[in-house]
């Protein structure tokens, strides 16, 4: 029975195997991409496009009334909204590409995109 404990000729893992785990790292780095522009949609139609770096506060007229949107230091938030549940205000600041604030009752959508046209905007 001694022969049954023969050394296996297969190796479960070798140092070079780490190459195949590199793609994962690459994707984790790529996820945190900051946006460049803010798009504001009202009733599904694009209304304003602003740079994320310009500080400004402005009003947008929706279904129920005026929403106040604030852009500050590369971040954007819904400062005030006339909607009943205030979900859009609770979202807080967003800054990464592809993120969005959606206010359904007032039909206002804020979305961030990069400089180029990408999959989100199509």
């Amino acid at each position, binding site marked *: 029975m001694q*022969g*049954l404990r*023969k050394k*296996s*000729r*297969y*190796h*479960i*893992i*070798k140092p*070079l*195997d780490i*190459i*195949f*785990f590199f*793609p*994962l790292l690459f*994707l984790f780095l790529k*996820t945190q991409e900051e946006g460049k522009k803010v798009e504001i949609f009202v009733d599904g139609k694009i209304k304003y496009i602003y740079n994320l770096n310009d500080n400004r506060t402005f009003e947008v007229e929706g279904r129920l009334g005026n929403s106040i949107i604030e852009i500050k230091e590369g971040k954007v938030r819904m400062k005030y909204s006339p909607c009943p549940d205030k979900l859009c205000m609770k979202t807080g600041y967003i800054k990464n590409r*592809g993120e969005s604030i959606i206010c359904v009752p007032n039909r206002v959508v804020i979305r961030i995109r990069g400089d180029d046209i*990408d*999959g989100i905007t*199509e």
Partner: protein
Amino acid sequence: MVSQNKIGRIILLSSLSSILYGIESFIPKPFPFLRIGLGNILVLFSIINMGITSGIIVGVSKSIIGGLLSGTFLTPSTILSITGTLSSIVLMFFLKNMKVFGIIGISTAGSIMNTFVQVLVVSFIFTGLSSLIYLLKTLLIFSTITGVIIGIITFYLLESFERRKYAIESFS
């Protein structure tokens, strides 16, 4: 000349692999493409143990018979399955012959290759690539995990097979 022993082994491996592929489709999953690919254990086993020809036979028959079992034969998923399996078989065979990678590495590479080829085929046939880029992240994480799982299972399968073969040879 192919020995009868080898033919028997190929048939056994193909049928086991098809059954695993078919049974797997009964497991509930959030998206149809997030499958573990248990049938690939036997494909990897046959590549390492018997060579690329057997691997291709097992892989293709897995896609066809498994598709018949799970009711997806001649749907787009058969094309995806066959192209993904073939490309990853060729890649895994080359990696195996380089002799610098362990079984987990070979399996992970095959799994990632499978995913990439499937995404490419989907984007060529059905939609543009842009809508799939956001899916690619999830798919890549998932295929790495399944690659590692399948590598571990295949390693223990190969080892137990080898031990049993040695025992039979030494006692007869």
